[in-house]
């Protein structure tokens, strides 16, 4: 029985892996329907697993409150938010409120009034983090870092309207049909499309081969540790 328990997931992974790998090459309604069916199953399993997530969330916060862990008050906030949204979703699904923008369900209003501003706040913090990360990255300590700094200044210069306006003040002249110096847009385009794309292409190539090798390891049962079993 133990042997079967270990073997069954490997057989499922192999059969499904080979079948859906081949499905990519077979444009038949039968294989197409099977893929659609499997995707639906995945959504169903995901829905059921959400219950597990809520149980985990519930216990971890109860534990925090019991132990008076640091910032345990936030656990209360979590429970209030969880049960409010749950209650409104179950009992007042169609109840509406009139807001400035028109009629809205209570659930929608709660989401729009609490979740959306909170999400926007988190996203806006990103701007400050980008600035601090850029400050660290663009210190010209080595040759490579200096090159990075120069490239970044040029690209940034072209991306902001003020930079473009300043660059436009530089006098240009024609040499053999070529404009010297080239426009900032052309320089940036070359950096992004030639240097940047070449580097990204190299990284993507490695990633693709890594993905293929990892998939094969899983399909052939060489890599089993994702199932919690290494034997």
């Amino acid at each position, binding site marked *: 029985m133990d042997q079967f328990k270990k073997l069954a997931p490997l057989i499922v992974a192999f059969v499904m892996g080979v079948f859906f*790998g081949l499905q*990519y*090459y*077979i*444009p*038949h*309604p039968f294989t*197409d329907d099977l893929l659609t069916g499997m995707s639906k199953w*995945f959504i169903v*399993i*995901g829905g059921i*697993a*959400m*219950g*597990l*997530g809520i149980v*985990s*969330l519930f*216990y*971890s916060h109860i*534990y925090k409150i019991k132990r008076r862990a*640091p*910032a345990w008050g936030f656990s209360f906030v979590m429970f209030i938010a969880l049960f409010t949204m749950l209650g409104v979703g179950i009992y007042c*699904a169609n*109840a509406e409120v009139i807001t400035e923008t028109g009629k809205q369900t209570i659930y929608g209003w709660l989401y729009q009034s609490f*979740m959306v501003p*909170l*999400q926007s706040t*988190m*996203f806006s913090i*990103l701007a400050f*983090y980008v600035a601090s*990360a*850029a400050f*660290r*990255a663009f210190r010209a300590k080595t040759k490579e870092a200096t090159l990075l700094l120069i490239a970044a200044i040029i690209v940034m210069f072209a991306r902001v309207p003020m930079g473009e306006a300043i660059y436009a003040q530089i006098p240009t002249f024609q040499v053999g049909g070529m404009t010297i110096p080239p426009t900032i847009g052309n320089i940036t385009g070359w950096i992004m499309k030639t240097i940047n794309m070449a580097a*990204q292409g190299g*990284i*993507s*190539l*490695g*990633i693709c*081969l*890594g*993905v*293929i*090798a*990892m*998939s*094969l*390891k*899983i399909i*052939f049962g*060489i*890599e089993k*540790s*994702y*199932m*919690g079993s*290494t034997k």
Partner: protein
Amino acid sequence: MRNYPAMILLVILLFLFIPISLPAQESVSPTPIAIAETPSEFQAYDTPNDCLSNISISWKAMSPESESIQYVVSIDKSADGKFEQEADKFPSVYNWKSDKEWPFWVSGTKEGYHYVELNILQQFPPLTQAELNKKKAELQKVRSEIEKAKLDNKDYSEANTKKLVLMDDLKILENKISKEKAEIKAKTYYFKVTAVDKNNQVLFTSPVLSAQTQNNGFNQSLLINFLAMIFLCATVLWFISHAKKNKNLFLRRINGLDAVEEAVGRATEMGRSIFYMTGITDMSDIACICATVILGKISEKVAQYDSQIKVPHRDPIVMTVCQEIIKEAYIKAGRPDAYKSDSSFYVTGDQFAYTAAVNGMMMREKPAASFLMGSYAAEALLLAECGATTGAIQIAGSDSTDQLPFFITTCDYTLIGEEFYAASAYLSREPVLVGTLKAQDFGKLFVLAALVIGAVFSLAHMPWIIDIIKDFS
């Protein structure tokens, strides 16, 4: 005295008669367009490599062609029919076969050929479709009535019975439609292509063409891709068997993975926890699976060093998998007693709520080490920068090329792309897994060779070679 009334009458009569007396103007007909070369080589066939009910029609372009000349493709169920159903109409300078990204062994000659794809089910939709749509709308209405009755605490048993009847009807109709669709697809259809000028004057009519839809067993345009996959599979398997015999395969040093031991050791010395994130994707993403595999190796070290790991999750399935992995790692390290079931826990499914929660935990607990593995989006920098401010040693590994620059800037070590996928083999040093890395290197060499050959042949104006090697992209 002049006779004014007579003169006025004469002028009026003159005006009245002038148009009659003038010779009738002949209607000016436009000069007919002279066709130097008529369209030819008409073909109708099942659209290759699709699983839809499409029919393709192609023909060699006529000369001259212009915006004012239009092609009309007509369809009929009978060869002797009137071909009154217009399936497509377009100016003769559009719809080229060369627009289709088919390799040469699928498309044949592409240049100078027009191409049209017609969906038979759109041309002849099942008769019961309208009835089905009507029933669906009815069911929707009944469902809303039930919802409303529930909210108003009213009796909705009648509506419920109606709903059940409608659902049964829908099932019957859906079966009927699928049978009808199969019948429609099985028939042979007839086509005619007509060239008309802007006055709808027929310039040319093709002979009657016939075709029937077919199920395709293999997508021929992916032939090279399929062969490359077989080749890569064989290479991986060969290198695995080779690695079993030769256990001392060379692996270049990856600093980020060498630093794992240092990070775990640091956490033990400082008596602080380790944070491990598996990314924002679920188990259907290979990067997430790879992150869980690396988690197993790191958890083993955590168990050996008697440290503590915390794995916050966005996806409950990943959480369950990670719980099993950590448990197994502790058992493997001989420390099952030290395992805590709450080390892997669910936070939320929302991207920024998750980020806020994890950042909060990091700020409060000040972890000694933080691992960011898997696929990330906008939250990458938020998590990594927050980790950096807590002073944690940070190791990131990702295949999200857009986020890699942020990780490189904010983390102490970053596993870039393929290094991330090589991590499990590198950490375990199992010959079988190391063998796959060798296969990866061989694959890289193969693709690079294809790139060089492709560039050379492309410069030599041999586009057919691009058809062969483009699947490597």
